[in-house]
């Protein structure tokens, strides 16, 4: 059944693709103009969808061609989808403003390859993501997922250099393995339930071998596309090698598409199927991702690789909500505080990570390199960029009232309510680790410039402002969440002694970790504690290098599918 305002959903998907077609047909400078128009229109549609949803108070649905499921296809936007639609619209708008300076068609040229492609791909990513969020059946989700990959891969190799082409091919080939596993699972579910519609599958699917196998395969395949540890072989080179405006899209948005589908499957399609052991496994991978991603981020020489590894860690953070959202009484995953927290974390990460990659691009522009050790004096010479990085970093740490702060509070609350104290620890240590790499970069930026270093060039104000505004969005997110689904007693006074102490402890913990693990010029010097920490870090790096080899990553993918299946089976028999 189509609800009032239902037509907005197909529009949200179609408008970006119409923009792609227009840009392709008009070419050259007009591609950018078409993209700008589309961004304005798409932003408006996302806003209207949000308002319609809030005023109606129920999901918006649209039945394509008047054919209702099981034969027809329904588009559906619930609270989760509306939140993600809005987040993507904001981030795309921010990136669009930033990218105007980097991807303008050069004066005198009629058409340049990279700018033209960039604008088309940006819109294609947007349209595919919107389709992921609103699609109501398993196969449309598959098509959307593939579209997203096809739009994301060329973004990696926009500059056409050998290394980025290799990164793009790694990404594409590994993502294809993931999507074929997803498709296999979807076909199995169709065979079992005789429908692809998510709501109908949810009604008809009973716990049993087919359900376990299908869900395990789909989950493993989607994790490969999300690059959850240990399936991350493609992420660091792909995200660090792309141009900054493209890295921002890939890191902030593209990985959220497959993450969203995992959430859909576990919370809406088969909430009673996976059970707690599988969720613990999922969150365990997340915890490992936080540890590996953060520590290896601290060992990086270049800022963009540091941010790429930080994405790896933050993806891990997103999966911590699964065991916390499990309701022991009903034996199912429920929409509640933990899911709200996880969604807020995903949204906060999207805005903050986009801002971080943008500032990395600005620093590169100013200095001609992005070696962290040589960024001394940046705080004085490019203050707006460093401020944007700092704000984005603080937004990720979750120390001041921001999206990530509320997310952490909600998850901690859920961990206490469900008596899973170990996730409490993971969340706290994860906060320290996030703080550590932000502190490391800022400490370098505030140092005195090395004598004899070339003075940095000025960077466009507008670009820095776009990054700063996106970073600040995380704080606006907290306000929106308080007005909306989150009770406001979570948002304490940030200057109350207890909150202040927590903030200080997080910064102190982060500083200690940054001191211990951080890369410095004189790495050999230091006491026994520092040496022990460095030895630990290099062990993690070696393990990471092994895990990112092709055969190992391929076996990990299948092994994870197997483990998920076994965990679901074990849950059913216990």
């Amino acid at each position, binding site marked *: 059944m189509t609800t009032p305002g239902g037509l907005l959903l197909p529009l949200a998907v179609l408008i970006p693709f119409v923009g792609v077609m227009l840009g392709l047909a008009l070419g050259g400078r007009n591609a950018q103009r078409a993209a700008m128009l589309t961004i304005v229109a798409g932003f408006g549609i996302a806003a209207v969808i949000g308002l319609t949803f809030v005023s109606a108070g129920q999901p918006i649905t649209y039945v394509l061609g008047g054919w209702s499921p099981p034969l027809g296809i329904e588009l559906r936007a619930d609270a989760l989808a509306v939140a993600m639609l809005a987040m993507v619209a904001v981030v795309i708008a921010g990136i669009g403003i930033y990218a105007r300076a980097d991807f303008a068609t050069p004066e005198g040229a009629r058409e340049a390859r990279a700018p033209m492609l960039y604008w088309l791909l940006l819109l294609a990513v947007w349209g595919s993501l919107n389709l992921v969020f609103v699609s109501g059946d398993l*196969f449309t989700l598959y098509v959307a997922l593939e579209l997203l990959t096809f739009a994301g891969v060329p973004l990696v190799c926009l500059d056409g250099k050998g290394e*980025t082409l*290799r990164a793009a091919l790694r990404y594409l080939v590994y993502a294809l393995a993931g999507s074929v596993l997803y498709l296999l699972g979807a076909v199995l579910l169709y065979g079992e339930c*005789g429908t692809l519609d998510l709501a109908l599958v949810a009604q008809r699917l009973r716990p049993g071998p087919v359900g376990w196998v299908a869900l395990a395969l789909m989950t493993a395949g989607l994790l490969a596309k999300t690059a959850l540890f240990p399936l991350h072989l493609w992420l660091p080179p792909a995200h660090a090698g792309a141009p900054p405006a493209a890295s921002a899209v890939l890191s902030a948005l593209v990985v959220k598409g497959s993450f969203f589908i995992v959430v859909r499957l576990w919370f809406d399609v088969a909430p009673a199927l996976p059970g707690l052991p599988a969720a613990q496994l999922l969150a365990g991978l997340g915890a490992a991702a936080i540890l590996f991603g953060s520590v290896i981020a601290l060992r990086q020489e270049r800022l963009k690789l540091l941010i790429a590894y930080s994405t790896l860690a933050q993806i891990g953070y997103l999966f911590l909500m699964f065991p916390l959202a499990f309701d022991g009484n009903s034996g199912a995953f429920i929409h509640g505080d933990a899911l709200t927290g996880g969604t807020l974390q995903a949204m906060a990460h999207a805005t903050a990570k986009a801002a971080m990659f943008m500032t990395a691009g600005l620093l590169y522009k100013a200095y001609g390199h992005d070696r962290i050790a040589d960024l001394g004096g940046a705080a004085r010479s490019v203050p707006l960029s460093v401020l944007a990085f700092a704000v984005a970093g603080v937004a990720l740490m979750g120390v001041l009232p921001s999206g990530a702060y509320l997310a952490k509070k909600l998850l901690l609350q859920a961990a206490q309510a469900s008596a899973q104290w170990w996730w409490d620890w993971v969340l706290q240590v994860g906060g320290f680790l996030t703080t550590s790499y932000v502190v490391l970069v800022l400490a370098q930026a505030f140092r005195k410039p090395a004598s004899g270093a070339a003075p940095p060039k000025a960077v466009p104000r507008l670009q820095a402002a776009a990054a700063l505004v996106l970073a600040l969005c995380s704080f606006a997110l907290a306000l929106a969440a308080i007005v909306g689904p989150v009770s406001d007693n979570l948002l304490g006074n940030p200057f109350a002694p207890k909150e202040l102490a927590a903030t200080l402890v997080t910064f102190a913990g982060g500083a200690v970790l940054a001191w211990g693990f951080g890369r410095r010029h004189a790495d050999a010097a230091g006491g026994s504690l520092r040496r022990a920490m460095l030895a630990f870090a290099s062990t993690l790096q070696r393990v990471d290098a092994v895990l*990112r080899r092709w055969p190992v990553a391929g076996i990990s993918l299948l092994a994870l599918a197997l483990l998920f299946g076994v965990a679901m089976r074990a849950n059913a028999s216990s």
Partner: protein
Amino acid sequence: MSGVILFGLVACALVGVGLYGFIVNPQPLRKILAFNVVGSGVFLLCGVVARRGAAIGLGGDPVPQALLITGIVVAFSATALAVTVLLRLYEETESTTLAADTPPSTADAKRT
């Protein structure tokens, strides 16, 4: 052995062979081919599912066939994209290995 079981087993074998090839072959072109072999297995399974749905008396369930055709188009596009990137990679670097694990900008760092 009924046709449904036979085709089901063949589908399983194709998926298995494809996944094995995907893991052990270092060459990207072979990985892309392996992906296509797995894909064929999945599409065959789709056909089996359609036939099983025919138990209610129809000649065959048309929905999986529609999925199959769409799936083939998607797999074809994926293969085309992957082969294009592979060719470009060969033109740029004269090698097709995916194994080199150098972060992408060591090359830039050397250049500057």
